[in-house]
C-alpha cells in the first residue's frame, strides 16, 4: 500500500499559541482516517495547511510520495486534494450542475458546454453510486443532498484525497448513515478520506484509523477496530498539563449566586439550556464541565445578561438581578472573564490604561459627577493590574494588541479580579496560553476564592476544573446531568458524563 499523505514535523504558530506542534502523520491510500480532538486542538489548522489555506512554519508534506509546497488551495486541488467544509459553499440560485462546474472555466463570453459536463458528472455519480439530479436547484435540496453536491464537486475536480470537516454536524441520523454508505463506496474505489470530528461513536463506526490531537500536538494514531471509546476520550482530554494543586475547602454560608430553574429562550429552534439549578457560596469555586456547545457558554452569558432567558431566577447575593441590565449587574458586583479575550474582553486597538476601564466605565470608580472618565484613576489602576498580575508590557500606554495572548489574558483576569467583585464568572480562563501565565492565573483565582469570592468556572480543561473547583456540575445537551466532588473525579469520569456515555 502506498502512503497518500505523509506529514512530517509540521508546526504552525499564531501570536501567543502554538496551533500545530511537530505533527507527524501518515495516511494510507484508500482508507478512512479520522482526526479527533477538542475545539482548539489544532485539527482545523492542520487541515488548512494540508489544503493550502495556511502555510506551515516548518515541516514537509508529501502527497503520494511527492514533496509538495502549497501556496493556495488551487495547488492542493491540482495535487488531488479536495475539502468539503462544514459550512457549505453553495449558491441557492444555481442548479446542481452549475454549482459543480462553478469556477472550472476561466470567465469568458463563450457559451458553457453544459451537456459535456453533465455527462462527466453523471459518470462520477454512477461510479460512486451517489445519485444526483443535476437539474435541481440548490435551494430545493436537503442538507444531505447539498453535502453530496459538495462531495461530487470535489471529486469532479479530480480529488483522490477527500477532507471532510465535521461532515455529520449538520445531518440527521438517517442522512448520516447514507453519508457513511457513500464514504464506504468512495473508499472501495480507492479514494482516501480524512474525516474530522469530535463525535467518537461515528468515528469508531466509519474510520479505519484514528489520530488524536490535543493542544496542537499529535497524541497518537490508533486502529479503530481495537480502540475503545473511553480510551479515545481519555486521549482527547489528556492528563499531560500541569495539575493545579488542591486546597482545603473554604466555603462560607452566604450565597454568592443562586440560580433557580433557569431556562434559555428558544434560539434556532432549541433552548441552549433548560431548568438549571445551582448555587455558589462565597469562597467557593463551582466548575461546569461539558463538551463545547452543550449550553455552558449561553448559561454564563445569561448570568451576565447578554443572552436572553425565558424563565427562572438569577440571584446575586440576595438580590434578584433578572431584570437588571448588564451594566447594572456589573455594578452589583458581577465580574466576567469572557472565553474570547480578543473579541469580548479587550479593545485591541486601545491602550491598557483605557482597557482597564472596560466594564466599569459607568461606575463611580471611573466616572466623575459630571460624567467625565477619570483617566488618572484608570492609569493608576492599570499599573496595579500590570504589577499584581505580572503583565509583561513596556507600559500602560501599550495597545492591547501588542501583548502576547498570555499577557492579554493576565490583564483581563487582573482587571476583573481587581474590580473586587462578589461573583466572578471565568469562562475558559487559561485557554491557549503558556504554562507560566496559566499557573499565575490559577493562583490568583484561588487567592481570590480564599478571600471569599464566589467563582463560576467554565473550562474545557478538565484538570483545571478538577484542580480549582470545590464542586463540579456536568452539563450535557443543556441540562446538568451530574454533580461531582472533585476529590473523586477524574478526567475519564468527567469525560464519560460529558459525552453522554454515563448519565
Amino acid at each position: 500500500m502506498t502512503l497518500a499523505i505523509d506529514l512530517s514535523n509540521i508546526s504552525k504558530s499564531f501570536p501567543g499559541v502554538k496551533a500545530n506542534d511537530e505533527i507527524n502523520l501518515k495516511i494510507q491510500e484508500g482508507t478512512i482516517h479520522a482526526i479527533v480532538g477538542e475545539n482548539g486542538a489544532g485539527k482545523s489548522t492542520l487541515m488548512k495547511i494540508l489544503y493550502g489555506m495556511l502555510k506551515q512554519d516548518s515541516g514537509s508534506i508529501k502527497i503520494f510520495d511527492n514533496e509538495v509546497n502549497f501556496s493556495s488551495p488551487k495547488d492542493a486541488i491540482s495535487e488531488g486534494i479536495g475539502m468539503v467544509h462544514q459550512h457549505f459553499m453553495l449558491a441557492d440560485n444555481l442548479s446542481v450542475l452549475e454549482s459543480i462546474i462553478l469556477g472550472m472555466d476561466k470567465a469568458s463570453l463563450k457559451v458553457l458546454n453544459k451537456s459535456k459536463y453533465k455527462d462527466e458528472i453523471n459518470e462520477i455519480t454512477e461510479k460512486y453510486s451517489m445519485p444526483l439530479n443535476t437539474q435541481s436547484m440548490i435551494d430545493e435540496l436537503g442538507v444531505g443532498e447539498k453535502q453530496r453536491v459538495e462531495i461530487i464537486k470535489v471529486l469532479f475536480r479530480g480529488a483522490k484525497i477527500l477532507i471532510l470537516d465535521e461532515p455529520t454536524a449538520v445531518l440527521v441520523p438517517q442522512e448520516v448513515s447514507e453519508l457513511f454508505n457513500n464514504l464506504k463506496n468512495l473508499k472501495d474505489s480507492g479514494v482516501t478520506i480524512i474525516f474530522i470530528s469530535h463525535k467518537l461513536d461515528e468515528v469508531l463506526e466509519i474510520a479505519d484509523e484514528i489520530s488524536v490531537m490535543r493542544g496542537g500536538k499529535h497524541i497518537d494514531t490508533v486502529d479503530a477496530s481495537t480502540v475503545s471509546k473511553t480510551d479515545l476520550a481519555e486521549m482527547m482530554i489528556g492528563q499531560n498539563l500541569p495539575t493545579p494543586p488542591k486546597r482545603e475547602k473554604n466555603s462560607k454560608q452566604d450565597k454568592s449566586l443562586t440560580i433557580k430553574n433557569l431556562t434559555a429562550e428558544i434560539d434556532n429552534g432549541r433552548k441552549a439550556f433548560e431548568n438549571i439549578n445551582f448555587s455558589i457560596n462565597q469562597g467557593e469555586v463551582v466548575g461546569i464541565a461539558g463538551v463545547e456547545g452543550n449550553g455552558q457558554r449561553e448559561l454564563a452569558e445569561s448570568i451576565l445578561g447578554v443572552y436572553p432567558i425565558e424563565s427562572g431566577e438569577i440571584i446575586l447575593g440576595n438580590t434578584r438581578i433578572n431584570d437588571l441590565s448588564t451594566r447594572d449587574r456589573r455594578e452589583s458586583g458581577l465580574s466576567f472573564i469572557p472565553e474570547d479575550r480578543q473579541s469580548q474582553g479587550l479593545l485591541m486597538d486601545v491602550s491598557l490604561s483605557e482597557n482597564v476601564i472596560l466594564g466599569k466605565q459607568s461606575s463611580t470608580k471611573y466616572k466623575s459627577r459630571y460624567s467625565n472618565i477619570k483617566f488618572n484613576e484608570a492609569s493608576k489602576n492599570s499599573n496595579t493590574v500590570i504589577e499584581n498580575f505580572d503583565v509583561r508590557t513596556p507600559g500602560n500606554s501599550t495597545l492591547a494588541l501588542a501583548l502576547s495572548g498570555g499577557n492579554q489574558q493576565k490583564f483581563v483576569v487582573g482587571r476583573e479580579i481587581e474590580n473586587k467583585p462578589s461573583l466572578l464568572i471565568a469562562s475558559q480562563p487559561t485557554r491557549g496560553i503558556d504554562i507560566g501565565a496559566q499557573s499565575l492565573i490559577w493562583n490568583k483565582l484561588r487567592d481570590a476564592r480564599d478571600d471569599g469570592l464566589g467563582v463560576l468556572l467554565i473550562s474545557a480543561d478538565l484538570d483545571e476544573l478538577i484542580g480549582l473547583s470545590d464542586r463540579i456540575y456536568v452539563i450535557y445537551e443543556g441540562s446538568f446531568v451530574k454533580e461531582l466532588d472533585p476529590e473523586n473525579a477524574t478526567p475519564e469520569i468527567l469525560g464519560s458524563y460529558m459525552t453522554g456515555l454515563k448519565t
Partner: protein
Amino acid sequence: MKLSLKLTTLLAPVFAIIVAFGLSTIMLYLIGEDPIETFKIMYDYGKTGKSIVSILNRSVPLYISAVAVAVGFKMGLFNIGVESQYLMGALLSAALGAAVALPSFLHITLIIFVAVISSAFWAAIAGYLKVKKGVHEVISTIMLNYIGTGIIAYLLANIFFEKVELSTTAPQTDLLPETARIPSLNAFLGIEDLPNLHGFIIGAVFIGILYYWIVWKTSLGFDLRATGSSPLAAKFSGANPARLTILAMMISGAFAGFVGIAPLTGYFFKYTTDFPSGLGFAGITVALLGRNHPVGMALGAILLSFLERSAQILDLKDVPKEIEKIMQAVIVLTVVVAYEVVKRYVTNRQIKEASKVVADD
C-alpha cells in the same frame, strides 16, 4: 534616528499632502499647464485678505458637518444623512425664526435650538430603523436624504412661501429679522475693507471642544468608542448597543443641526432653493481627512476651503479648475493610505517593544 510615535503620526498627513501635490503636478504637466505657475497663482489668490475671510467662512459649516459625521464614525456608524439632516434643521429654524419677534439672544438661541432638535429627530429615524428593523444606516440615511429633500421642497414651496400672483421669485422663507442675525467679527477684530468674517466661527470652536469632550472624555464617549472598536467587548462591558445606536445617531444629527446656522444667520438670512447644499457629503470627506480628530478636521476643512476658493482664479487664467476637485480627491486618498501605513508601523513597533519586554525577563 528614531522618531517618537506621536511625531510619526503627525507626519502622515504632511506626507500625504506632498504626494497629492506631486500627483497634481504630473496631471497639470500632462494637460500642458505649468504646474509651478498654477500653484503660485492659486496660492497668491488664496492668501489675499478677501480670500482668507471667505475660506474661514466656508470652513465653518464644513467643519461642523465633519464633526457630525465623525460622531458616527467613532462608533462605527456611517451617517450619510447629514445632508438632509442639516437642511431640514435649517429650513424649519429659518421658517420659525422669521415668524417670531424676540430679543436677539433668545431669538438666536431659539433658531439654534429648533435646528438642532429637528436635525437630531430626523437622524434618530435611521437609528430607530437600525435597532428595531435591522435596516443598515447607510441605506436608511441615503433614503432619508431623498425623502428629506422632497419634504423640504414641499414645505418650502407650499407652506413657508407665500405665492404672489405671477411672481417670478424662487420659493423662499421670509427674511430673518435683525435680532436673529449673528453679527460679524469685523468690528470686534477691527478689520476694515474686507468682507464679513462670520461670528459663528466662535460657535464652531465650541462645537469642536464639545465633540472632543463627549467622545474622548465622558463615559458615554467611552461606550461609543468601545462599540466602534469591538462591539462584542462593549456589549459584554455593559454598553447597550440599541440605546447607543439611537443616541449616537441623535448626537450626530444634533451636530448636523449646527451646520446650517452660519449660512442662515450670517449671510443668507432665509432658506431658499439656493441655500448651500452638499455640505453633508463634503463633511464625510473632511472627517476622513482629519481622521475624526477635532483639530485634524479643522485643518482639513480649512484646506478644502482654501482649494475651493483658490481654484476660482484658475478659470480666469485659462487653467481648467476641475484640477482642484481632482486634487481634493487625491489628497483624501493619500491621507487614508498614509494613515494606514503609519498605523501598521506603530502597531508593529508596539508589538516589537512588547515582545522585547517578555524576552528580557
